[in-house]
């Protein structure tokens, strides 16, 4: 496509990743546009000026996913709808469950995993699942690539370890080796931002359970001691908890781990209660 007067250009639409990274290197303040479901809300409201935008829509290398041994490499441009694809949902059921709770069909068709990571909202639905999976975020710049563990990638509410000129390229998670659950509370079942959420990942191979909470802290919350305790309460031959009180106690432990705050969506006390219920239910469903 022909470029008009320089200064006339508003939107860059590279088709290759290298091109995209060069555009970002030329001006690291460039606004990166993935699905637009967060960014365009700010643009429409006049809160963000979109003078120079890098649209990732046409970058084929960011789309799709592949399996590398026991690991899945999910491209940053993978939409929530694509996470619901049968084959991928079997390999990463927790991500599929989280994706299904996002917005509406319209939002799921646009929003992407890379966008969820880049925006780094404490309520991002894939983030607790990625945290419980010990996901690794692959980022790239013209200087090369690096892989950042999720708990280092997310540095605070809407803050990441991305350096200027870096782009999220993919996220790596293990292929499921046991049940996974994502549960979320909001004011309705669709079109809702999580007031509290909980991801539970059972790893039957390594005989351990991981759990991460969303929307009750600046980043997804994990509690390794409680996870170790829960793992010790599982009969790993059957992958069931040894008795019915385990789920309830686990819920209470996770509620105390939550760093819930009062805000316009819910008071902290409600969030802690919600976490105790969600974590208990997750255990009942995955290990009951």
């Amino acid at each position, binding site marked *: *496509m022909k470029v008009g007067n320089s200064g006339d250009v508003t939107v*860059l639409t590279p088709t290759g990743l290298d091109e995209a990274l060069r555009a970002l290197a030329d001006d690291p303040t460039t606004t990166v546009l993935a699905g637009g479901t967060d960014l*365009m809300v700010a643009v*429409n409201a006049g809160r963000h000026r979109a003078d120079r*935008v890098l649209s990732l829509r046409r970058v084929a290398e960011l789309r799709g996913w592949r399996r590398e041994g026991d690991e899945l490499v999910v491209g940053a441009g993978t939409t929530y709808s694509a996470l619901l694809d049968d084959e991928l949902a079997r390999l990463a059921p927790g991500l599929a469950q989280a994706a299904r709770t996002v917005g509406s069909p319209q939002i799921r068709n646009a929003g992407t995993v890379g966008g969820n990571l880049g925006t780094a909202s404490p309520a991002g639905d894939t983030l607790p699942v990625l945290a419980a999976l010990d996901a690794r975020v692959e980022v790239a710049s013209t200087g090369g690539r690096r892989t950042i563990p999720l708990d280092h990638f997310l540095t605070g509410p809407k803050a990441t370890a991305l350096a200027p000129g870096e782009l999220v390229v993919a996220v790596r998670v293990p292929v499921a080796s046991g049940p996974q659950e994502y549960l979320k509370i909001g004011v309705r079942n*669709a079109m809702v931002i999580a007031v509290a959420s909980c991801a539970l990942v059972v790893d039957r191979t390594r005989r351990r359970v991981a759990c991460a909470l969303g929307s009750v802290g600046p980043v997804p919350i994990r509690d390794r001691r409680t996870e170790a305790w829960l793992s010790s309460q599982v009969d790993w031959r059957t992958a069931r908890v040894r008795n019915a009180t385990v789920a309830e106690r686990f819920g209470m432990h996770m509620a105390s781990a939550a760093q819930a705050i009062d805000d316009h969506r819910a008071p902290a006390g409600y969030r802690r209660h919600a976490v105790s219920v969600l974590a208990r239910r997750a255990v009942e469903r995955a290990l009951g």
Partner: protein
Amino acid sequence: MNAVPSTFSLRVNGVERQVEDTRPGESLLFVLRERLGLPGSKNACEQGECGSCSVLVDGELVCACLELAAAVAGCDVVTVEGLARRAPGAAGPTGDAPANGSDDGVHRDEHDDHDDLGDTLTDVQRAMVEAGGVQCGFCTPGFVVAIDRLLEREPAPTPVQVREALAGNLCRCTGYGRIVAAIEAVVRGRSEGAPP
């Protein structure tokens, strides 16, 4: 590097349209309504909550308010105005719609230019009228596009599939019951071989 200048071309309802002198950040919804004279997609929340601006971009149902217009240059955009033309087996602008669709006394020419878009109703649109799925009408175009997409993927959706597919479209008038009834009527009609 591909770069989209402030004047660019957008393919809407099968027609290449020139969009001139846009300002940074203009959404697809703004361009459709304010620059291309296609007001069918409605502007309500501008944050993807209400679904009244639902359109198809490369066949995917999305909110036009959340698409940066320049970034979808080169994509295939279908709005509610273009659904009738797009429907499989659709007749020309005079259509073959039964009573509710065509007996309104409006003269339609046989020619097939852009001005005719929206004059013919699809079976989904007719069913919405017949079932009383339209009250104030503001949400209707978004519902029609979403329903069109749903039935393309799932010709006989379950009640749960219907509810989930329409979860992104808000209607404050009907309580949804008559909208769901309209969908059931379309599914019945199509299974009996009615034209779209």
